[in-house]
C-alpha cells in the first residue's frame, strides 16, 4: 500500500469527517480562520486578540480563592515577524490536532516540537515557543491541552504515605495501590493524567499532605519514618511542580479534605513554587481554578527560619535579588505576610536549602524542626 499522502491543504470535502467532539473543541480555531480570511480579503493586516498572561493581568477570584486571568489583552499581529509566525503556527497546529483526531493518536509536547520540522518556515525555534502556543490554544478554546490530544512528558512526581488509591493501568485494569506498603523506596509515581477516570481515592490514614521541593528531603523524611509517625502524606514537588502534581494536590485537598503544607528551600524561587501551588501560576492563570489549592500553607524554610535556626546560608545572588524585587510587584505576593517575608530576605541577603537543617544531625528535621513548625501552624 502506498503511504498515505498528506495533502498540504486538506479541504473539508476530501478528508474523513472529524470526530464531533474534536470538532466542537476546535470550533474557536475555525472561527479564527474565518476572521483571518476576512481580514486578508479586506486588505487588513491579520491580527487576533488574546488575554495577556502577565503578572500585571492576573486577578484574584474570591469565588474560587485563586488568581485567574484578568481582562487585559494584547494583539497578535502579522505586522511583526513573531506575531505572523505564531498566527501561521496556530493553523499548522490545528491541522496537526485534526490529523491526530482522525488517526486516534496523541502526542507529547516534545513530539509536537519535532513535528513542527514539517512546518517549513513556521517551525518552532525552541520548545518554549511550542509550549506557549499550546497554552494560547487552551486560552482561545477554553480547553485543556489534553483535550487537544497533547500531553506533557511523564514527570513522575512521587507520593509516599498511607493513601490507598485505584489506578486504571495501561491495560484498562483497575489496580489498588497503597502508597506506603505497595511501593518501593521511590514511592508511588504520579502519571501525567491524575483525573478521576484514571485515579480514584479509596482510603487513607493521613492527617495532612506535606509537599516537598527536593527529593533528598523526601528521602530523609521517609527514612526517618515521618510519614508513619506523623500520619503525613509526602508529595515530591520536584522543583516547579508539573500540572499533574498540582492537580493531584488539589484533589487530595478538595476530595479528602487534607490540609496541604508546602516545605521548600528558603530562596526566592521557592516562594514562586508555593505561589503556583496555592495561588495559581501566571502562565496557567487561565486554568488556575483547576490546578491551584487555595488552602495550601507555606511552612518554610522562611527568611526568619534561617536566622532563628541559625542555618548555614549562601549570599543572595544578583539574580536572586532581582527575583525577590520582581515578587514585590507580583500581585499574588501583595500581602503583609509575604511583603515582610520578602523584605526580610532582601534585608538579610541570605538564602538556605532545606537540607541545611542537617547541620544539627539527620533527625533534627523530623524530631525538632517540622514538629515545631507544624505545631505553630496548627496542623499537628
Amino acid at each position, binding site marked *: 500500500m502506498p503511504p498515505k499522502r498528506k495533502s498540504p491543504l486538506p479541504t473539508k*470535502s476530501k478528508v474523513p469527517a472529524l470526530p464531533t467532539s474534536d470538532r466542537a473543541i476546535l470550533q474557536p480555531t475555525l472561527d479564527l480562520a474565518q476572521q483571518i480570511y476576512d481580514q*486578508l480579503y479586506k486588505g487588513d493586516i491579520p491580527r487576533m486578540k488574546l488575554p495577556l498572561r502577565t503578572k500585571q493581568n492576573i486577578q484574584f477570584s474570591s469565588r474560587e480563592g485563586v488568581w485567574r486571568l484578568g481582562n487585559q489583552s494584547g494583539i497578535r499581529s502579522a505586522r511583526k515577524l*513573531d506575531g505572523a*509566525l505564531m498566527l501561521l503556527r496556530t493553523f499548522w497546529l490545528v491541522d496537526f490536532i485534526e490529523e491526530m483526531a482522525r488517526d486516534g493518536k496523541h502526542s507529547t509536547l516534545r513530539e509536537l516540537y519535532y513535528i513542527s520540522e514539517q512546518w517549513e518556515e513556521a517551525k518552532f525555534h525552541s520548545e518554549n515557543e511550542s509550549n506557549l502556543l499550546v497554552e494560547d490554544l487552551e486560552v482561545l478554546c477554553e480547553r485543556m491541552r489534553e483535550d487537544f490530544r497533547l500531553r506533557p512528558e511523564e514527570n513522575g512526581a512521587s507520593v509516599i504515605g498511607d493513601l490507598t488509591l485505584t489506578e486504571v493501568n495501561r491495560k484498562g485494569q483497575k489496580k489498588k495501590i497503597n502508597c506506603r506498603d505497595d511501593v518501593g523506596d521511590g514511592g508511588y509515581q504520579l502519571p501525567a493524567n491524575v483525573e478521576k477516570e484514571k485515579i480514584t481515592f479509596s482510603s487513607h490514614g493521613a492527617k495532612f499532605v506535606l509537599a516537598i521541593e527536593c527529593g533528598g528531603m523526601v528521602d530523609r523524611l521517609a527514612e526517618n519514618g515521618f510519614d508513619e509517625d506523623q500520619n503525613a502524606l509526602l508529595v515530591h514537588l520536584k522543583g516547579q511542580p508539573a500540572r499533574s502534581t498540582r492537580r493531584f494536590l488539589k484533589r487530595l485537598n478538595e476530595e479528602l479534605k487534607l490540609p496541604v503544607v508546602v516545605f521548600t528551600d528558603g530562596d526566592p524561587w521557592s516562594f514562586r513554587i508555593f505561589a503556583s501551588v496555592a495561588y495559581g501560576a501566571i502562565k496557567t492563570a487561565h486554568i488556575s481554578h483547576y490546578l491551584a489549592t487555595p488552602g495550601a500553607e507555606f511552612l518554610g524554610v522562611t527568611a526568619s527560619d534561617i536566622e532563628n535556626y541559625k542555618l548555614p546560608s549562601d549570599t543572595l545572588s544578583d539574580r536572586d535579588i532581582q527575583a525577590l524585587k520582581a515578587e514585590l510587584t507580583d500581585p499574588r505576593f501583595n500581602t503583609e505576610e509575604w511583603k515582610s517575608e520578602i523584605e526580610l530576605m532582601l534585608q538579610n541577603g541570605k538564602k538556605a536549602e532545606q537540607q541545611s537543617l542537617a547541620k544539627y544531625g539527620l533527625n533534627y528535621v523530623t524530631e525538632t524542626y517540622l514538629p515545631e513548625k507544624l505545631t505553630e501552624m496548627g496542623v499537628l
Partner: protein
Amino acid sequence: MPPKSIAEELASKQKAISIGEFFERNRQILGFDNPSRALLTAVKEAVDNSIDSCEEARILPEVLVEISKVTEERLKVVVEDNGPGIVRKQIANVFGRLLYGSRFHSNRQARGQQGIGISAAVLYAGLTTATPAHIVSKIEEDPAANVVDLFLDTQKNLARVVKEDVLAWDRPHGTRIELVLKARYQRGRQSPFEYLKGTAIVNPHARLVFVEPDGTRTTWERATPDLPALAKEIPPHPHGLELGELDQMLRRSSSKTLQLFLSTDLSGISRRGISDVLQKGEFTGRENPSAFSPERVERLLAALKDTPMATPSAECLSPIGPMLIKRGLKNVLGSLRPEFYSPPVSRPPKVHAGCPFIVEVGLVYGGDLPSDQPVQLLRFANRVPLLFQQGACAITQTVADMDWHRYGLEQKSGAIPVGPVVLLVHVASTKVPFTSEAKEAVAHTDDITREIELAVQTAARNMKLHLSRRTRRDQAMEKFTIIQKILPRMAQKASGIVDKPVPDLTRVITRIMDVVAVEAKGSGEDPAKPSPRTSLTLTNYTSRIRPIELFLELPLESVKEGFSAEPAPETVSQELGRVTFPLQKLTPNAKVTYTLTWPKGEEMEAEDVDIFVAGVDEAHLLGADPLPGDWDVRLPAALVEAAENAEIAAARPTPAEGDEEVDYDATEKKESFADEE
C-alpha cells in the same frame, strides 16, 4: 711611604663601565628580563631587522622563524630572510656590538633604530647558554655565504669571533641567524605567534613562515605585491631640536655660513623664515657655524623655536595606507569571517616635537569574534606590534577614555569597551615617543593622543553606522520574510479551512511594508560578498505613486574609468564619488532595478554604496537614507575630515503605528519567569 689620600684610593677604583656590562646588569631595559619575554624579544629584533633590510633593498620580504627545543630550558631560534645580506667584515659589528647600526642617525621611520636589539639577543644567548650566535649571510655579488660564530664581549663591546667559514648557500642573498638561549615557549597574548600575526597584518607585503617547537607551521601569505614606498631621509626639523644636538650639528656642518646651514642642514625653513631667524637671533648670516660659542648656539635655538615654520615633510614616513590596512586585516583575520571592515582611517601627518607622525586606525566587527570579551586592541608603532605594557600605552588610554556607548558598545567607565571588535592603531613617526627603551608603549603626549582619538572616533562612527544599517536591514529582512513567506502560507491555510479561494494579498502586503524599499545586492554567489556588479532594487510598497530620485555615494576608487550604471545616471562625479539618477515615478507595487558595474578588476560590497533617496520621507524609506538637505554643499562622508564631531543620526525608530496596543508576542511571558512546570 706617605699614606694615600682617600680621594686617590677611590680614584683607583673608578673606571668606565662598558656598555655591555651595563646592559648585562639591566636586562629588563632591553626586554630580556624573563625566559618567555627574552624569546619574544629575540624573535622580534631579528624579524624587525630582516624586514627593515629587505625594504631598504627593495626586496619583498620573506622571513622564516623557527623555534625548536634544545633542552627543557633552552630553545633554539632561527630567523632567516631573503634580505640583501651583510658583507663579511660587517657581520661581526652588526651582530656582535651594541649600539652599532645604520639607522640611528637617519631621520626617517624605521623599525629598529638604536642598533641595540639583535646584538642584545646575541649577548643574552651567550650569557645564558654560553653558545655563540651562528650567522650565515650571503650578498648577491659573492658566490658563497659567509658563516660566522660569535659572542659579544661585554667589556670591549666587540664581537669575539670563534669560527669563520664559507658555505655554498642555495639562495641568491639573505641572512640567517641562529641563537640558543634560555627561554620558554608559549602561545597567548604576549607570544612570538601574536607578534608575527600582528607583523603580518601591518606588513601585508611580507610573507612570514613560523614553525613552532611542536612542529606546527603557520604561513602568513603576502596580501600585496607592492613594497611600501621607501621613507625618505630628511634633515631634522628645527622645532624638534635640542641644544646639544644643534651644537653638534653646527660643529660638524660642512656649511661655511650660518645662512647656508639654515637652508641645507635643517628642513622646513623658508627663505622668509631664514631672514626671520637671523633677525630674531641678531645674526648676519655670514657667521661660521663651526665656531659658535655656547651663548650663540642658545640664541640660535631660541630664534629657531620662535619662528613659525612649515611642518616637517611626511616623506620620511611610511604609513600603511587605508587599502593595505584593510587587506592586511582581511588576510589575517579573514578566517573569523568578520561581518564588517570599517574603512580604515589614515590621518594626515602631524608634528610632535619637530618629528612628523601619522596615526592610522583599522576596525573589524562581528563574525566569530567574541562579543562578551573586551575589544582586541592591536597596537603598532612603525609597523611593529606592541605586546607589552598595554595599560601604560597612550593608545590604550585613549581608547579607554572614549565613551563607547554612543558607538553601540558596552563599556565600564574608563575601561576598554566590550564587543566583537578588533581595533588596530598604528603610530608611525621618525621618533615615536615610547615610555621606555624597551619600546613597548607609546608615551602620552597631547598631539599624538589627540590624533589617535580622532582616528579611532572616525572608525567607531563607521562601525556605529554599520550597526544602525544592520538594524535597519534586519527590520527590512523581517518584513520581507513576512510578506514573501509567512503571509502567503497563512492565506492559503485560512482559505483552506474556510474553503474559499486565496484572496489577493497586494493590499495587505502594502500595508505591512508601507515603505519604499531599497535592496542592495552583489552579483556574486554570496550577494553580501564583494562582486563585480551591484544591483539596487527600489520597490514601492506604499499605496501612493512615488516620484523617486536615487543618489549614490561610492568609494572613490570605484567611480573611475570603467564604471557604468544601468539605467544611465544623470551625473557622475569622479572627484566626489557621487552618482545621481533621473527622476522615476513608481506606482504602488512597482519596482525598478539599477545595476552598477564596477571598473574592471574592482570588486565592491553592496555595503560600500551609500544610498540616498529623494521623494520619500524617512518613515517610509527602508534600506536607504533620505537625501540630506545639505547634499549640494556638503562633501561626501568619505572625504569629510571635519565631520569629526558630528553626531551619528540615531538608528531610525520603527514606525509608531500600532503602538497604542500591547504586542502580545512581546509580553513578559517570553521572559523566563520561572513560574511553571
